[in-house]
């Protein structure tokens, strides 16, 4: 595996908090991995441990065939040796250096800095000091600077949290595109579900200092490993699709063979995630009949799992779908694996996130 990160390490902080992270990220499939978890779950600490800014008490970290840390062998590479770019939450631009010199600080050859300024549209800001820049501009400079150093792995600590809401929404897509174009394996820390969905290919869920689950984004949302992961991710259905039409306030999304209609949020076209909470899906037996709901999807029941008073129904509608109904309803409808069923979803229940 050319670009695989394995980390199994423990670090106890003076506060008593213990990070006990065990995770494997194959970046060949997981280009951009979101490190997701509630505040105080240890996300930033794990990122600092990976960068070499903090030393685990024990364990091992390997990346791309190179050992970065191994307590058994007393080995710990410095941040300089790891070549892991780190984007700080407040960007940590050098306040006494202009934009150009901030970027040139990282660039291997002096001429390269100009290339990076051009690529990030920073030429007009080249002579400015960081404090005269807006939050969004600072983020761009920080990203250009991090990439100019030619990192093997890019670590981003809540890269959008220092921005106001409007800028954040705008830069989400810009950031996603930049990371995808750079092709550099990236780990983005966030506690924001929307951000996780908009930015990641893979997701690693960190709760109370432990990685509870790590896998492809949609899969983790659909099959949370445990109740804590389910609570923190919140949305069960994350369906990759494509906006194929938009008309009178509704967007039509092609997902597999099916079409979904959602309230149009006007966030560009192209690839999207359609996000649907499992309890927002109504089930009707048999084939579709007309109701006021915009989406009636024919499918087949895969499994019915009782969870206390509720039943979790896994469907195949051309794409996997999870619905939660009361156990009573499941019994009344005689939902059994293999039966045909119709999933009814209101257009307002589908949350569209463009990618």
């Amino acid at each position, binding site marked *: 595996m050319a670009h695989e990160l394995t980390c199994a390490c423990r670090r106890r902080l003076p506060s008593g908090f213990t990070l006990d992270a065990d995770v494997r990220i194959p970046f060949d499939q997981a280009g951009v991995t979101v490190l997701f978890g509630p505040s105080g779950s240890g996300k930033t600490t794990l990122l600092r441990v990976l960068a070499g*800014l903090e030393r685990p008490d024990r364990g091992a970290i390997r990346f791309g065939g190179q050992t970065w840390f191994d307590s058994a062998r007393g080995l710990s590479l410095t941040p300089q040796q790891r070549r892991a770019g780190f984007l*700080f939450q407040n960007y*940590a631009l*050098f*306040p006494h250096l202009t934009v150009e010199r901030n970027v040139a*600080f*990282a660039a291997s050859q002096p001429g390269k800095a100009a290339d990076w300024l051009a690529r990030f549209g920073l030429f007009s800001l080249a002579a400015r000091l960081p404090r005269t820049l807006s939050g969004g501009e600072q983020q761009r400079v920080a990203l250009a600077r*991090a990439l100019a*150093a030619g990192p093997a792995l890019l670590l981003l600590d809540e890269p959008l949290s220092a921005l106001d809401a409007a800028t954040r929404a705008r830069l989400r897509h810009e950031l996603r595109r930049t990371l995808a174009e750079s092709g550099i394996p990236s780990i983005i820390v966030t506690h924001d579900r929307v951000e996780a969905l908009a930015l990641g290919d893979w997701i690693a869920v960190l709760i109370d200092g432990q990685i509870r689950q790590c896998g492809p984004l949609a899969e983790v949302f659909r099959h949370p490993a445990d109740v804590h992961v389910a609570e923190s991710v919140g949305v069960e259905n994350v369906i990759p699709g494509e906006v194929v039409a938009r008309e009178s306030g509704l967007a039509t999304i092609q997902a597999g063979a099916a079409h979904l209609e959602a309230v149009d949020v006007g966030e560009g076209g192209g690839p999207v995630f359609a996000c649907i909470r499992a309890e927002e899906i109504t089930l009707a037996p048999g084939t579709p009949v007309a109701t006021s709901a915009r989406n009636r999807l024919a499918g087949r029941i895969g499994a019915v799992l009782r969870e206390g008073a509720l039943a979790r129904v896994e469907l195949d509608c051309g794409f996997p779908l999870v619905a939660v109904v009361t156990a009573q309803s499941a019994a009344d409808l005689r939902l059994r694996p293999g039966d045909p069923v119709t999933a009814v979803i209101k257009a307002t229940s589908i949350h569209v996130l463009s990618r």
Partner: protein
Amino acid sequence: MDWQAIWLSLRLATLTAAILLVLGMPLAYWLTYSPRRWKFLVEAAVALPLVLPPTVLGFYVLLAISPRSPAGALYRMLSGGGMLPFSFQGLVVASVLYSFPFTVQPMTMAFASVDRKLIEAAWCLGASRLATFRRIVVPLAVPGIVTGVILSFAHTLGEFGVVLMVGGNIAGTTRTVSISIYDQVQALDYRAAGETSLLLLAVSFTVLAVTYALQRRIWAVWPTS
């Protein structure tokens, strides 16, 4: 006015400040960033001249640099028979020790006020520790470094007790401006003493005023946040 003594004090103060700049920066850096638990002992030792009577410090320095001490013997060997007590070189040694806290403390404070994240950012961009210190920490700590150098200069310019213990009162070699003033008062030459004192007062005030003015400007150009 005793121009010879004034010139000697200026030379002593400049040399002391220059030496302290070179010695003080690495020590201040170490004191700021070292994780060693026992560094408080070094901090206390550096701060000693702030509370120790100059005569006591001078006495120990005199013992330490006497020709029979290891340091004195080494100096004698290296300089081909020279002696540190009652010499200008001896005064420099004593002044450096005496002004150490005046250089190291402002520098330590300045280094500590540099945002740790900036240093870590430089490391993650591949800059070595030395390059990070040179290109990030020092430029951002310039006001503190300048303060440290100026304070040690001004402090050395007016020193009396340590100089008297270590250097005595040899015109052109160890008679500093403050000793000259003392001599003038002893000789009841109040006019000369008044003139020299006024000069020292004016120089000290000007140096400090320029320092603080410069600092304001530097802060205004390079804010830390």
